[in-house]
């Protein structure tokens, strides 16, 4: 698309950017939820979460190439493999340092991130791989100057659908309410008979599954994947979780969309010469948010945990 300067911003152009922002925001939201759920329960900032997205994308590629499954089955399979990877990472890396100071667990997560990225580079080659989605997803619609393909529709519908399902889960089921209880007060949750290990595993399963969906969607949008593809989206999703109020699931979703829209609109509205600073805008936005509202959009001030 032709990039326009300030003087030629039309309504259609703005709408187009809105669509792009919502699509990008859906991906950030899916990844941010995983960050926020794990942080809520363990006070662990899991920087390896973005790499789970990469694991999801490669799992999808592997399933599609080796088993020739239909797209929905590939997606479901990649969610499953990512969920297993998430649980495995928790058991192997995070459980041994559970209860350690936050710096320790954070550095552990950085180590896991570097490990996964390098494992991917060694085993899968650093070269990007072609990531093909079925042709029907690439059908482009043109509505009065607004263009989007079925992939965009799928991203938004899937993200919203999964978030609604998650909302039902955390408000209607015993396990879901127990997750919210644990994220508020881990000790009191234990006194209810809640098995914390089970709650933590559930958080990693859900978070990793959602990250896999984001990975497949990113792969489908760009048409290629590589072992480092999770790093930047992971970092931005972390920013989204903080903006929304870390530990708050609804906040992560809101933060994801706010960040996606802000990123696309800033890049779309500023002169083209500044668009290379796209990622810098995200972090400037984070700094501004932290100055104005340090607890995030939906966050609340935390009273000390016993």
């Amino acid at each position, binding site marked *: 698309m032709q990039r326009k300067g300030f003087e030629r911003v039309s309504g259609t152009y703005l709408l187009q950017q809105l669509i792009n922002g919502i699509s990008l925001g859906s991906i950030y939201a899916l990844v941010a939820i995983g960050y926020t759920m794990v942080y809520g329960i363990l006070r662990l900032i899991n920087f390896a979460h973005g790499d789970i997205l990469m694991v999801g994308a490669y799992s999808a590629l592997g399933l599609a190439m080796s088993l020739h499954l239909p797209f929905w089955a590939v997606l479901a399979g990649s969610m499953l493999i990512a969920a297993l990877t998430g649980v495995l990472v928790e058991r192997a890396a995070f459980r041994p340092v559970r209860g350690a100071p936050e710096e320790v667990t954070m550095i552990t997560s950085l180590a896991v991130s570097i490990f996964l990225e390098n494992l991917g580079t060694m085993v899968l080659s650093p070269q990007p791989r072609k990531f093909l989605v079925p042709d029907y997803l690439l059908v482009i619609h043109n509505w009065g100057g607004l263009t989007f393909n079925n992939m965009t529709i799928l991203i938004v519908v899937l993200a919203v659908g999964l978030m609604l399902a998650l909302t039902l889960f955390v408000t209607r089921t015993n396990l879901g309410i127990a997750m919210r209880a644990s994220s508020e007060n881990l000790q009191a949750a234990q006194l209810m008979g809640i098995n914390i290990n089970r709650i933590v595993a559930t958080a990693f399963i859900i978070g990793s599954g959602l990250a896999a969906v984001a990975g497949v969607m990113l792969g489908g949008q760009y048409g290629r994947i590589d072992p480092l593809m999770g790093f930047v989206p992971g970092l931005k999703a972390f920013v989204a979780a903080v903006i929304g109020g870390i530990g708050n699931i609804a906040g992560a979703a809101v933060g994801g969309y706010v960040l996606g829209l802000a990123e696309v609109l800033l890049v779309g509205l500023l002169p083209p010469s500044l668009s290379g600073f796209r990622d810098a805008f995200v972090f400037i936005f984070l700094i501004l948010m932290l100055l104005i509202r340090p607890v995030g959009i939906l966050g609340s001030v935390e009273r000390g945990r*016993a």
Partner: protein
Amino acid sequence: MCELSIHESGERQVTSEPLLVLEHVDAGYGNIQALDDVSLHVKQGELVALLGANGAGKTTALRVISGLMRPRKGRVSFQGRDIARAGVHEIVQMGIAHCPEGRQIFARLTVKENLRMGAYLRRDPEGVARDLEWIFEHFPVLRDRLSQSAGTLSGGEQQMLAIGRALMSKPTLLLLDEPSLGLAPIIVDRIFKVIAQLKEQGKTIFLVEQNAFKALEIADRAYVLESGRIRMKGRAQELMANEDIKHAYLGG
């Protein structure tokens, strides 16, 4: 102590053994020794109070029983089973409910969700519904606030919710940590009335209190903890009449 000899005589005599037994328990944080050679017991159907000043180790004793803290030495047994190494959720499963200090209700969850979490391990919906009715009967305000988030309740209402939530697990033994803390006298009276009613209905209760007079009024027996050691023990009426207790705890 007689409980000790019963215990050493074999695992099979569980019926004659008290429900809860602590034997020579040491516990602490870092260099701080919070419990020093504490031995006590609670029999089925009893209401036993653990009294003492702030920092005497009362809360630590409850934390050791519910598994939130591991004793450094000594034995904790419940229904004849050693529970000193069991996980917190396993101890709840065995039938101990711990209503913690400072209430610790889930402020962002609704009153209903809080009560539902109390019954987390139960698989008998009819029994749960019956217990819920009992709680509403004794704390009607909770029924009115059912779909409100628990953080909006007053301090007294939060204490009622915390007790109700603990009861929802249908515990064999109820541990109460300072239920009177920070509450208006009229609310304290209400809560102690309900505790007395629970005892009349046969519930076994281990009550930690700073308000010694209130606790001795409803308790069968009591222990007095001072700097982590048991200084006195006996029947509640005897302790109430004791000059030292009157002087130290009852303002006499």
